[in-house]
């Protein structure tokens, strides 16, 4: 299996998401956690980059982190799958490598 890329930094503060998208091979998965979840909104300056990413990768986001930050699912990009902590753990077991873009 392939790589699970984890992004935990805001796309507007750091280049973690950009580096991840540049270096993630098609088919590898992307999981947004902590401040990384600010990339899910469908009308932000990161939305076009994310739409492109969604064509090549399964994209997940950690629901408790959205809830904590008041980021509603109603403005989320289509195609992102929300996971809870159990889902997070399950993902880490389904992929044989983890790459955290700290």
């Amino acid at each position, binding site marked *: 299996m392939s790589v699970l890329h984890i992004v*935990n*930094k*805001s796309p*507007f*503060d750091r280049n973690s998401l950009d580096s991840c998208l540049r270096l993630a091979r098609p088919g590898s998965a992307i999981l947004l956690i*902590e*401040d990384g979840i*600010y990339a899910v*909104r*469908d*009308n*932000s*300056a990161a*939305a076009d980059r994310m739409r492109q990413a969604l064509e090549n990768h399964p994209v997940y986001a950690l*629901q*408790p*982190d959205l*809830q*904590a*930050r*008041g*980021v*509603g699912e109603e*403005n989320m990009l289509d195609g992102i799958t929300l996971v809870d902590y159990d889902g997070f753990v399950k993902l880490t077991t389904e992929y044989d490598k983890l790459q955290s873009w700290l």
Partner: protein
Amino acid sequence: MATKKFLYVNRKPPHGSIYALESLEVVLIGAAFEQDVTLAFIDDGVYQLLQKQDSSAIATKNFAPTFRALGDYDVNKIYVERESLEMRGLGKDDLMPLTWEDEDDDWAEKDSIHIVSSAELAEIIEQQDVLLNF
């Protein structure tokens, strides 16, 4: 004690670091000294004011409701940079309504949040005596 104009500049999102909570605590402590306090929210700092934040599931202090107490502390000049909101796909409706009661106007409830342009915010920064960054 001469009153000075203090501006707290907030540029970090609420939960990824301790800055946002620390800033709010310093603002509340500082408010006890009856200085002229203004808050600015720029860049990811605007996320601190989003509605419906509920951090119960990530076991961190849910301090968003505390912003609503700022009016009681006479902190009622809160400026949010429009450009920062737009870049994040946000507008005023996405932010918590923050209000204060004007004692000199029969306790009329007034908006504390003002959405301003970069140019207006630059002007506000120039007018201050002390700048505190978080």
